[in-house]
């Protein structure tokens, strides 16, 4: 009964590499640049070009020239989160050449910015592109974060009084740590009353392929999120197209009176004279 350590158990690897500490790299905001690269992301390009245009206009209003590489496609995230890293890497690498000069790269999406900023370095580890991937990652900013912290954007509200609920995507909130950005920008708008929805930090249930791989759980989540937003205000804004498509799609399908909009579109619209 009284067995000794050596007889029964497979030997442990005594010299295995020590586990690595996952540490977040420090984000360094650059001084306001003359130009930026605009990476639209596939969802904005196809479904929400207005949000992209609004973002571009907000940047131009800051006196920044917006470089829009016409050959951009996708950051590679869908394949990455599905486990197909060869394909994710190939698609990601195809974007590297779009940004030859050292200008910042801005994205109207927390989720894609999170992919490029947080996951590119690791995706390209042990490849010849490692340094390049790291350099690109360091230049990537989510657009509202860039507008607030690099451009020191000050918004002047031209619209009528309105109540708005903000839904911050999980990637913006947790991967990038910029949940305060949307709040701060909305709070600059004098006529906008921002109402915090119940369980504001809870995921809306989109999760990319999750929504189709686990449709029942996703449905339960979007149902709750939509309800929480409606309970707060009839109008909601969000930083990410995935969440917008998910929540707005559910509200439409169930004929709930909830109007969603990308945060960038909303900010641009509110600051126009004809708002």
């Amino acid at each position, binding site marked *: 009964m009284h067995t000794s350590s050596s007889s029964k158990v*497979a030997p442990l690897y005594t010299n295995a590499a020590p586990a690595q*500490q996952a540490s977040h790299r420090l984000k360094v905001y650059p001084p306001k640049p003359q130009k930026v690269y605009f990476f639209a992301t596939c969802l904005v390009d196809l479904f929400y070009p207005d949000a992209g245009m609004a973002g571009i206009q907000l940047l131009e209003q800051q006196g920044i020239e917006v470089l829009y590489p016409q050959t951009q496609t996708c950051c590679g995230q869908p394949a990455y989160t599905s486990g197909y890293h*060869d394909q994710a890497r190939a698609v990601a690498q195809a974007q590297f050449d779009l940004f030859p000069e050292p200008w910042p790269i801005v994205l109207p999406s927390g989720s894609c910015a999170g992919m490029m900023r947080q996951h590119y370095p690791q995706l390209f580890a042990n490849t010849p592109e490692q340094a390049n991937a790291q350099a690109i990652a360091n230049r990537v900013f989510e657009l509202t974060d860039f507008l607030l912290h690099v451009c020191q954007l000050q918004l002047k509200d031209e619209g009528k009084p309105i109540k708005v609920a903000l839904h911050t995507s999980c990637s913006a909130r947790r991967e990038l740590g910029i949940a305060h950005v949307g709040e701060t920008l909305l709070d600059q708008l004098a006529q906008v009353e921002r109402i915090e929805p119940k369980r504001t930090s809870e995921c809306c249930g989109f999760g990319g392929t999750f929504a189709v791989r686990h449709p029942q759980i996703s449905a339960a989540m979007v149902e709750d999120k939509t309800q929480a937003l409606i309970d707060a205000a009839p109008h909601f804004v969000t930083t990410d197209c995935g969440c917008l498509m998910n929540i707005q799609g559910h509200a439409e399908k169930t004929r709930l009176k909830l109007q969603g909009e990308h945060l960038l579109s909303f900010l641009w619209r509110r600051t126009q004279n004809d708002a």
Partner: protein
Amino acid sequence: MTLKTDHLAGGQFYIRVQDALANAPIRANFRKAMDGLMHKRATALEDTQERESLRELAANVRLRALARLPELLIQLEKKCQSQGIQVHWAQDAQQACEQVLAICQQRQARTVIKGKSMVSEEMELNHFLAEAGIEALESDLGEYIVQLAQETPSHIIMPAIHKNTQQISQLMHEKTGTQLSHDVAYLTECARQQLRERFQQADIGLSGVNFAVAETGTLCLVENEGNGRLTTSVPSCHIAVMGIEKVVEHLEDVTPLLSLLTRSATGQAITTYFNMISRPRQPDEKDGPEVVHLILVDNGRAHLYQDPELRDTLRCIRCGACMNHCPVYTRIGGHAYGTTYPGPIGKILMPHLTGFANNAALPSASTLCGACAEVCPVKIPIPDILVRLRREAVNGDQINPSVMAEKGFKRTWKEALAWQLWAYLAQRPRLYQIATKIARLGHYWMPQSLGAWTQVRTAPRPAAKSLSQLRRDAEKSL
């Protein structure tokens, strides 16, 4: 029941999820309980600076221990032995069960009283002992309720969290003849009385271990009900079972871990009881067991340990915060997972304990929202590990080939081809733009149904002009 032989576990998961989602009381019980637990944790760890520096410290304590795990286990064994604790090594659940049984037989034991131990759940020990004619009785209140109901725990800290007071009252009434009552104090008192007698009669007490200190040979046990102390001190023999990852180097390493464990789990600053066991009863002592055994259970951990990335899974101190904060767990509850450990930690741990294919649906059943990693006291990057498991499941990386035993079990040629096609297009901007144009035009004749997506949502509508088109137009007009 765990799914040891069920190769359709992926399919079963969907069925259990459907049942759970349709079960209103289950959903209400979990929502209410998880809301409460999230609130308690937030209140207990209000000082964010203290919280974050403690988490950093705790993560490093665990990393440091894991980096030296093999040596520390040998050190623990030697130290325990020198203090009179008998140490056994079990390679898997089966062997661990057999070792418990051998001790029982040696002592001619008929009844075993148990403190809470998730490793014993992992071993399915109660079942094993019952078949050998030995009764194992759970003494933790939640475990006791679960055992009365012939269920398994639905949460690693609060095993009966899926039941509300009414359901518990009904159960105790049926099984033990107590009055129907919503008075929690009354029900607790009844259970306490029933259990007290059993403590006197039990031949052996069996407990888990929260932390084992290598340097001092101390087994630490965290609990609230005093049942852990009775289990480890009343019967003449105490058996402690622990996963091999639970060891830490020094006694002072326990401090940050304990401080975060209780606050992350239940929002308590400290539990009612904290037991430190380092030897059997000494001649001049009035109580305590004559014999103490420690069973070190591997059950897949040593193999998992060999991968430097997956190894982070072993940092876990089983606080349950990841499940309390998980939007998926909150919706479907613990039983839907069909695993000993549910929730985020279950998703990343179970494939190594009971097989990857047996837990086929788990790695994808996450939005990667990161709520788990945000609260994990030892900062396990759970979403990253989930992505890693997805990659393992489809063998999706030639530069970093998959290493798990059942790697690639989920890869289908159809899915692989679809991703290849997607990647082919996304590397060829011209083709890609044509493809998106087709998608845009296609939406006019595309059915307004996209399978699972459109069951609860409208289909997304492509804009009349893509952003790149709008930009081209704008540049032309300049």
